[in-house]
């Protein structure tokens, strides 16, 4: 039945409300229905034309009758066609208007890039985001667009043309959002999340790409504010800690009989201080105050110093170390923190005690530090998230041994800033091995 068919097609065209009739399909008859209407009217005319003409012009005969019938047929069907086509035209224009309004009211900047890699359309949000006068100002080759707005990735590195989101989408890829920076027409930088999707042509190959630019400056500012706040808060904690610790030491000196209690106070102050330090480290790292200096040192020696420092506090976990010489150029203290963090985790997540094995070796022009434990391991479904900030793989399980969920995130960030990687293998119930690599330092100091 044509009616049913039109409903189905209409529903699939406006896929938001399947099955529900809307204004669009009342107006936009499918071609089949138009042809059917035309045919019905034509058949009715052919069947009834003699009778009708007999009434209108009872005296007409022969050629005059044929010409009259033919002319009337053409006039009627032409009017019908006109009505049908213009009705469809109005409907399509209404749909186009609605789509346009929708696109214009979306808060994200949207660019349409054609197969010739030119920006050919843009919405109002894109115009506002980039601070240009009109949408036409955005049109033109994508490469000129990228250079005009100084498109670069979040770390400031320029984006190679073949890595531009629209290029990748035109090559058929769905580009998942990544962070970048664009320079507005007024010279101000704006942080954007960029994604893109191909628009398939009739042959299934991409004939255009839709690129989405989302302004994430506000979220980023919020991130920075939070880090700044955490950093200040952690910093502010330290003076009272210093006062408490110093007075406890003073009392201990003056009244040695209370030494036991005062030692506990100092130990707990130190513990609180480590947590605060941890918060400071992570947030400082992200704010990057730039005061850390890289120096040349032997990763094996540093590992041995770190292991030495940790041994007394974990008697139930003998920490072994095998270290080969591995010169690196890095921020010594931060690398020591990353090592400490991995060793801490190995101890923390081996509640039953057991050996922890640390190793420094050279593999293919990289220095690799590894820590192996025989503890809890990480459940497979939690492994993907363990580098997330604040994520704690054992939170909410009976095996929650505390911590702030900052160590791995911080350590990995430290390592990545040095051009290294961090990875792990883990088997639930068997233990984990965490590794990080750093580029070996050249021969010259």
């Amino acid at each position, binding site marked *: 039945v044509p009616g049913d068919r039109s409903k189905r097609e209409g529903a699939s065209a406006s896929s938001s409300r399947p099955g529900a009739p809307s204004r669009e399909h009342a107006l936009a008859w499918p071609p089949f229905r138009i042809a059917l209407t035309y045919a019905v009217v034509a058949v009715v005319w052919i069947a009834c034309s003699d009778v009708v003409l007999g009434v209108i012009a009872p005296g007409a005969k022969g050629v005059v009758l044929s010409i009259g019938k033919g002319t009337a047929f053409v006039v009627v069907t032409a009017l019908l066609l006109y009505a049908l086509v213009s009705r469809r035209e109005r409907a399509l224009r209404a749909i186009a208007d609605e789509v346009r309004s929708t696109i214009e009211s979306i808060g994200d900047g949207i660019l349409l890039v054609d197969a010739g890699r030119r920006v050919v359309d843009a919405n109002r949000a894109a115009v506002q985001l980039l601070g240009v006068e009109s949408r036409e100002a955005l049109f033109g080759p994508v490469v000129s667009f990228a250079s005009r707005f100084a498109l670069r990735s979040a770390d400031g590195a320029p984006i190679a043309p073949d890595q531009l989101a629209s290029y990748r989408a035109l090559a058929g890829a769905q580009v998942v959002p990544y962070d970048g920076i664009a320079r507005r027409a007024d010279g101000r930088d704006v942080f954007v999340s960029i994604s893109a999707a191909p628009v398939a042509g009739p042959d299934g190959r991409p004939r255009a790409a839709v690129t989405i630019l989302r302004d994430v400056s506000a979220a980023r500012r919020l991130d920075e504010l939070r880090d700044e706040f955490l950093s200040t808060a952690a*910093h502010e904690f*330290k*003076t009272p*800690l*210093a*006062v*408490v*610790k*110093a*007075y406890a*030491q*003073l009392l201990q*000196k003056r009244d040695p009989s209370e030494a036991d209690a005062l030692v506990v106070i100092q130990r707990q*102050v*130190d513990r609180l*201080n480590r947590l605060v*330090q941890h918060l*400071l*480290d992570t947030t*400082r790292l992200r704010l990057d105050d730039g*005061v*850390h*200096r890289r120096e040349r040192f032997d990763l094996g020696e540093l590992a041995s110093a770190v292991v030495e420092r940790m041994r007394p506090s974990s008697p139930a976990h003998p920490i072994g170390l095998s270290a080969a010489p591995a010169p690196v150029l890095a921020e010594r*203290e931060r690398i020591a923190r990353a090592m400490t963090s991995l060793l801490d985790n190995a101890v923390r997540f081996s509640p039953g005690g057991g050996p922890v094995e640390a190793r420094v070796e050279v593999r293919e022009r990289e220095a690799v530090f590894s820590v192996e434990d025989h503890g809890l391991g990480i459940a497979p479904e939690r492994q993907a998230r363990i580098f997330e900030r604040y994520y704690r793989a054992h939170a909410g399980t009976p095996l929650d041994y505390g911590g702030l969920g900052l160590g791995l995130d911080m350590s990995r960030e430290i390592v990545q800033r040095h051009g290294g990687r961090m990875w792990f293998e883990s088997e639930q119930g068997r233990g984990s091995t965490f590794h990080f690599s750093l580029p070996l330092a050249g021969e010259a100091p």
Partner: protein
Amino acid sequence: VTRGDVLVVEDDPDLLALVQMILEDVGFHVRTAREGAAALERVAELMPGVILLDMRMPGMNGWEFAREFRARWGRACPIVVVTAAENARDRAAEIGADDWLSKPFDLADVVAAVERLLRGTAASPAP
């Protein structure tokens, strides 16, 4: 006599009082200031043997004090940076300080740092 004279610059009154107490306990003469501008006045009155300098202070902070001090007196006396910052050593290097202490510190380290720096310039004070 400027030898054995320690200037402690710290905005927290409790910590200031304590550091003063333990340094006086081992025989140093201690003067105090709660921020940089006051510290500059103390230095102008009399050059101390060593300065213990907090970095974050209301008013003139440690960086500003150090810059001003160097401009007026160069390296007339050693400075020990006392900071809660993540990397005390780098903070110290920033202002060309002679030593550093990170908060929370051990009392013994405070005394040791002061003694070490004063040894070079003076007879040790009476213990």
